């Protein structure tokens, strides 16, 4: 078991294991890559990742999970214990909860303010245990605006299986006009089964959110999200390609109006990543639902084909990742020029 574990560890950290949000954006943000971002999804990955320091460019007041500035790092305390942390990074689960709530209720509640995240992992006889804490707090007493977030993050890996469990303890936001939302019964759990290039993944997220204006309940929603993924990767000399099929099931129940939304989708993703030389990596992917794409109240089965291209530049132990801004996103121009070149730039130093 121990040998298998170390084999997995080595094989999952190939020369193409660059990092950053830009890399994952170019590859459709899939969780089957060995990447610095994945330590926040599966904290046990801390024990499978080399020490690094990463700086992501972005805005100070982020409104999405992909536009904020942050820094992250990982250090090895000894051969069995690793520590990781992040400053400014939005937690993907709580951030997703707030963005989704804002989206379905047309509100503008803020994301976590000045967040910090600490993660610890311990490796013992082929097993990995991890524990983390995410914290943020903001309180503008004059304008009565603020938010609080506290999340316990846990992880466990044994052999081919990795688990992650996130338990938000506090998740409250207040905005002007005495509007307040409280997220409760919130939980997200994920599992990853990795055997060589084959990866199966699953995740469940659930929360209840209640918005009160001046103490009066105006909106309450229950949210459930189930995701199951299957991916396979083919590694060739200094390059690889992958395909992935997911099944997404999402249910939203509006408790105030007794309306419901359902989303069922089966997206297919294909991607490539290849080293041109010792300093340049090109990557790209395309994602689209096929056969099943249903959503009750919006034309969700409309075209959702998205191509994304990006690059990575290696300078000794420094990696600079970026997306090609003209070649990413649903409204891309298809152009690669001086005005639309690199975006979402991140620098990662491995040591």
């Amino acid at each position: 078991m121990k040998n298998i574990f170390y084999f997995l560890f080595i094989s999952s950290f190939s020369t193409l294991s660059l990092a950053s949000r830009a890399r994952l954006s170019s590859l459709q943000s899939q969780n089957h890559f060995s990447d610095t971002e994945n330590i926040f999804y599966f904290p046990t990955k801390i024990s499978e990742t080399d020490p690094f320091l990463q700086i992501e460019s972005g805005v100070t007041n982020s409104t999405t999970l992909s536009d904020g500035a942050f820094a992250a790092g990982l250090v090895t305390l000894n051969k069995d214990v690793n520590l990781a942390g992040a400053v400014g990074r939005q937690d993907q689960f709580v951030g997703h909860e707030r963005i989704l709530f804002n989206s379905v209720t047309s509100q503008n509640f803020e994301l976590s303010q000045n967040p910090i995240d600490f993660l610890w992992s311990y490796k013992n006889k082929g097993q990995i245990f991890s524990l983390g804490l995410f914290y943020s707090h903001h309180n503008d007493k004059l304008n009565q605006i603020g938010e609080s977030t506290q999340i316990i993050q846990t992880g466990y890996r044994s052999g081919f299986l990795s688990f992650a469990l996130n338990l938000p303890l506090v998740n409250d936001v207040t905005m002007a006009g005495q509007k307040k939302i409280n997220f409760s019964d919130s939980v997200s759990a994920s599992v990853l089964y990795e055997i060589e290039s084959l990866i199966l993944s699953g995740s469940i997220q659930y929360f209840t959110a209640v918005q009160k204006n001046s103490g009066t309940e105006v909106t309450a929603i229950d949210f459930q999200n189930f995701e199951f993924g299957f991916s396979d990767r083919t590694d060739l000399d200094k390059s690889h390609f992958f395909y992935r099929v997911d099944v997404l099931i999402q249910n939203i129940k509006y408790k105030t109006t007794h309306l419901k939304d359902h989303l069922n989708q089966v997206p297919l993703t294909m991607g490539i990543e290849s080293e041109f030389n010792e300093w340049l990596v090109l990557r790209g992917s395309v994602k689209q639902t096929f056969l099943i794409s249903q959503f009750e109240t919006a034309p969700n089965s409309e075209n959702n084909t998205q191509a994304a291209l990006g690059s990575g530049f290696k300078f000794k132990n420094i990696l600079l990742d970026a997306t090609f801004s003209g070649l990413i996103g649903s409204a891309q121009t298809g152009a690669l020029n001086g005005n639309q070149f690199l975006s979402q730039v991140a620098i990662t130093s491995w040591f």
Partner: protein
Amino acid sequence: MKHLLMLVIAFSFSTAFATKARLKALSNSLHLTDTQTVFVSPYHLMSLENFVALEAGLTTATTVDNGAEGSMLMNVNSDSKIFLSVGHLDESVQSQRKFVNGIAGVTAYKTQQNPAEIIYNWKDGSTVWGLGTYYSNFNNKLTNEKESSAGLRLAASYGDFKWKANFGLVNSAVNTAGDQLNSDTYFNLGLRYNQNTLRYGLDLTTWNVSQTLNAGLAPNLSHSYQDINLRVVDVTKTETGEYFIGAGLQQVTVKDKQADKKFNRTTLPLILGAETKANDWLVLRGSITQSVLVAQSKDEVGYSAASLTGATGVVDAEFSAEANNTAVAAGVGVVMNKVQLDATLKGLTGATASQNINGTDLLAQVGLVYKY
């Protein structure tokens, strides 16, 4: 600094060996075999290396060449291959929808939504067979806007002789006004023959399309389209690439069945082009097309330019020799090991080319192909 300089050079000239960008830069010449030509000539698959191809573009594509798409070719065994594609808008569907959307007063119909396609190729002795199908479906139950398409492809290659048949089996759409578009038959038959450096091609394409208004029982629009296109191209291989010269004779007839009026256009387009390796990693390509000697059209209906090439929107417009239609296209390809990045040189391509290669008008229609 050296790295940055190389990077600037590399991205200042990019376009390549496959993809929409390559086809555009070479004016869709008859002789090309490419990741994009497999859709209309499925027998091409067996002559291509396995690949993953990504085309940058819009999620909400409005034409056959501005949408994002991806495809993959893989071996099933030594004598067969399978090709999968998502996002590709097919001309057997889009031709009719573009035509109807270009008619004055029509509320726009959607393009294909989230299309998927699969093509299977297999070798039987010296014969290569191709069989494929595509599908798309969209139904917005809130607004009742819909679209649906399905088609079938058959093709075979016997040495220097090849044929292909593309059938549009389903092509229907309902727009936001509740009007219904139907195109019950699309048929394209293509014959190809290679003789030394010469490539011959004959294509016959026909389709019918009609529209029935929301409140109507019978169609208020009904049109038929026929295109006969005979082409020949002489391809000369050189040490670093190839150049080609060709000509064609194309006759397009469109009939407004309800008004019993026709649009006829006959042209003899000339094509010149070249593709060459500048060095190990850079490919340059370009082409020019223009009608010569024969460029005649008569339009009793007054079809719009958005509906038909050569139409002007003027009833009874007639040209015994048309105005300028000279168009140059240029592109580059950067070959990086197994990856090829293709693009058109934006400032040098199309009817309104700025004639610039600079930071603003540089690369467009970028595609990435990974061969394995």
